[in-house]
């Protein structure tokens, strides 16, 4: 097996409406920033992996139009899309492209430009996801019960509500803890110049003052819909050691999907995952990724986590799925400040998806942020402790697609 490292990272500023650039220019910015960071020329790049949720931006196969802007003409381009986990899967594809020995330097880039579509995808996107199948179902006959279960699911926020309630019920976590997560993420985001929702000094009380959207979520809990792009340069071991003082090695990775998507619970003829916060796929992915990385006790060996958390409950749920805390105790650790930027197990020092959500790009940013922490390039949001190992997640589909990536500063 060939060792693969991240040698350069590039992002664009994320905000609600990037009217200063079009889609191609925005993605171009991220890729050129990454090339500059890696000190690699466009000609040296062997392959590209790209991805976004094409329905949200309204362009089909956008990489064919914008390929020239990122220097992809005349190169292999693999397009990956799996919903929210897209960015994670794009990086994993780039990892395999280099690890296979077919290519030496690959670029992974992912993006979203929500403001180009009529409705922002981040919060209503899952309604599309649910309703998309109705065309096929109407062709073949659809039962009223089935139709109801799809329309009542309530988009991404709806799915996350059910999931949060399961978690809160079994762990004892309260809405106040969700306020604390959201406030922490907004504060962290204020230190990240690329983040969207920045709120220096945000307190849980500030979040608790915002309106209810759907119990247990308040307006202040929910991620924004952002425009933005990010890119990573990956290289094989020889090149990484020559070109980069402190490469971030990809030590383990996996993307196991859950048994079924959440829209297929018993109302829709599926086997019915009763507890949507179980996320078996995340557990399986973490186990495999840690095994590849040689990590035996993630609670001791992982130094920082970048968790895909459009909703604050997910930071707690996935931190447990990743084995960073014992089952049902993440909210207690949160109370003690362990997940703070200077805590024992910093979670989302960048502010995470809760503060910035350009869907395709979000899961790629998690890996990118882990790389920055390992390379020591996270500037203001660099965690206090020394970072040797970091873990990143992506979450997509209708709760069922997961991508877990473990990065480190060296091999064991």
């Amino acid at each position, binding site marked *: *097996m*060939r060792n693969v490292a991240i040698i350069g990272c590039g992002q664009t500023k994320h905000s609600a409406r990037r009217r200063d650039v*079009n*889609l191609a220019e925005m993605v171009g910015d991220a890729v050129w920033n990454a090339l500059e960071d890696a000190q690699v020329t466009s000609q040296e790049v062997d392959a*590209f992996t790209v991805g976004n*949720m*094409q*329905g949200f931006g*309204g*362009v*089909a*196969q956008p*990489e*064919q*139009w914008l*390929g020239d802007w990122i220097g*992809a*003409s*005349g*190169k*292999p*381009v*693999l*397009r*990956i*899309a*799996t*919903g929210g986990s897209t960015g994670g*899967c794009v990086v*994993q*594809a780039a990892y*395999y492209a280099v*690890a*296979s*020995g*077919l290519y030496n330097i690959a670029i992974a880039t992912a993006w979203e430009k929500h403001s180009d579509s009529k409705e922002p*995808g981040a919060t209503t996107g899952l309604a*599309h*996801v649910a*309703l*998309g*199948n109705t*065309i*096929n179902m109407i*062709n073949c006959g659809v039962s009223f019960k089935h139709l109801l279960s799809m329309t009542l699911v309530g988009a991404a926020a709806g799915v996350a509500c059910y999931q949060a309630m399961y978690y809160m019920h079994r762990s004892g976590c309260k809405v106040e803890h969700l306020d604390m997560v959201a406030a922490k993420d907004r504060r962290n985001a204020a230190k990240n110049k690329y983040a969207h929702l920045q709120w220096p000094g945000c307190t849980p009380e500030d979040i608790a003052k915002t309106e209810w959207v759907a119990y247990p979520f308040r307006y202040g809990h929910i991620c924004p819909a952002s425009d933005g792009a990010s890119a990573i340069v990956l290289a094989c071991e020889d090149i990484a050691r020559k070109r980069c003082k402190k490469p971030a090695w990809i030590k383990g990775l996996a*993307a*196991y*999907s*859950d*048994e*079924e*998507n959440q829209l*297929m619970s018993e109302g829709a003829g599926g086997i019915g995952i009763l507890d949507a916060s179980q996320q078996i*796929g995340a557990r*399986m*992915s973490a186990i495999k990724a840690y095994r590849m990385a040689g990590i035996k006790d993630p609670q001791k060996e992982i130094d920082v986590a970048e968790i895909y958390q459009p909703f604050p409950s997910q930071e707690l749920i996935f931190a447990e799925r990743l084995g960073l805390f014992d089952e049902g105790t993440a909210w207690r650790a949160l109370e003690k400040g362990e997940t703070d930027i200077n805590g024992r197990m910093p979670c989302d020092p960048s502010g995470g998806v809760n503060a910035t959500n350009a869907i395709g790009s979000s899961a790629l940013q998690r890996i990118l942020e882990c790389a920055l922490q390992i390379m020591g390039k996270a500037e203001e949001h660099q965690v206090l402790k020394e970072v040797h190992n970091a873990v990143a997640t992506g979450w*997509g*589909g*209708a709760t*069922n697609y997961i991508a877990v990536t473990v990065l480190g500063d060296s091999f064991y």
Partner: protein
Amino acid sequence: MARRVAIVGYAQSHHQHDMPMTREDMVFEVAKGALHNAGISREDVDTVITASTDFLDGRTISNLYTSMAVGAYLKDESKVEEDGAFAASYALMRILSGVHDIALVEAHTQGSVVNPHLVSSYTFDPLFERQLGFLNDISAAALQARMYMNKYGVSEEQVAMVAVKNLMNAADNLNAHRKMPDVTVEEVLNSKIYYDPIRELTMSPVSDGACAIVLACEQKAREITDKPVWIEGVGSCQDGYLRDRSLYKLDSLQKAAQDAYEMARVSDPFAQIDVFEVSEKYAHEELMIYEALGLCREGEGKALIEKGTTEKDGEIPVNPSGGALGADPICATGLIRVIEAAKQIRGEANGYQIPAYRALAHGQFGICAQKNVVFILGSE
């Protein structure tokens, strides 16, 4: 390549218009079929890669309901957009990396659900071409055809001969959609015109269909089958956008083929490859493909079809299965070519078998074949 990888099982649907089956049923059948063909079960599979696109499936996250039907649940899996042949190249990388040993690759489109020609207009530059509204995949292909035909003096009859060859070949293929055993050049030239010179019979039909293959590393492949089909070479490439490329030739296919030839140590494809399965979404593209694959000099594609060199009994048979003109379930089309090439090597192409030790399969995607992927397959 770091490891040898082989195709050890495959399955495809009976491609047709308006298949009386849900997408989930359709992909379930082919995934199960491919595993059955390989003689393994879902538990043996390490990784699953599926291929479909959101716009063509008419839904966001197109794999949301199909990945479970394919058997990807609780597996390390992913989805490649666009052609299944690209998904196969990704699965190949996953095995070559040493992380996985056995991969299942599935691709599908039901063209009858969402009109693919309508969808194609969303691939254009949204700031300029799309606003003008003149271009879709067919009108762009018409520009490509005219540029190619004008530059090299290719006649409409010569283009029609490609359609005749492939539609007649499709008649022998049980899985093909458009079978016309008695079609003539006149009939092709009299078929309905869409955008000059693209006619109903010189463009691919809108099909529903799916296919799946199983890939395995050398050790597993030998355990699974006596007839592994080895992947000897692979190459893929994307061209510039429509405005920024030479439309009269397929530069990206040429580059992809060169990479694949180099990897497979093929110096003279005409002599060293026995059969070709290519994705010609339009009849004129097959002539351009001959040239890009190095089977003849630039502009000489017409000579190959005139002399019958690429007929089933010619020197270098191209598309004995009928190609994309015979059936085009868009995202599956390239992967079907891989299957058809593997069938030729395994001697399982009933009715259109060609003695073959080495075969080439080609998949494409995008406006005027903007993206291309080439596989070289071989027997022991």
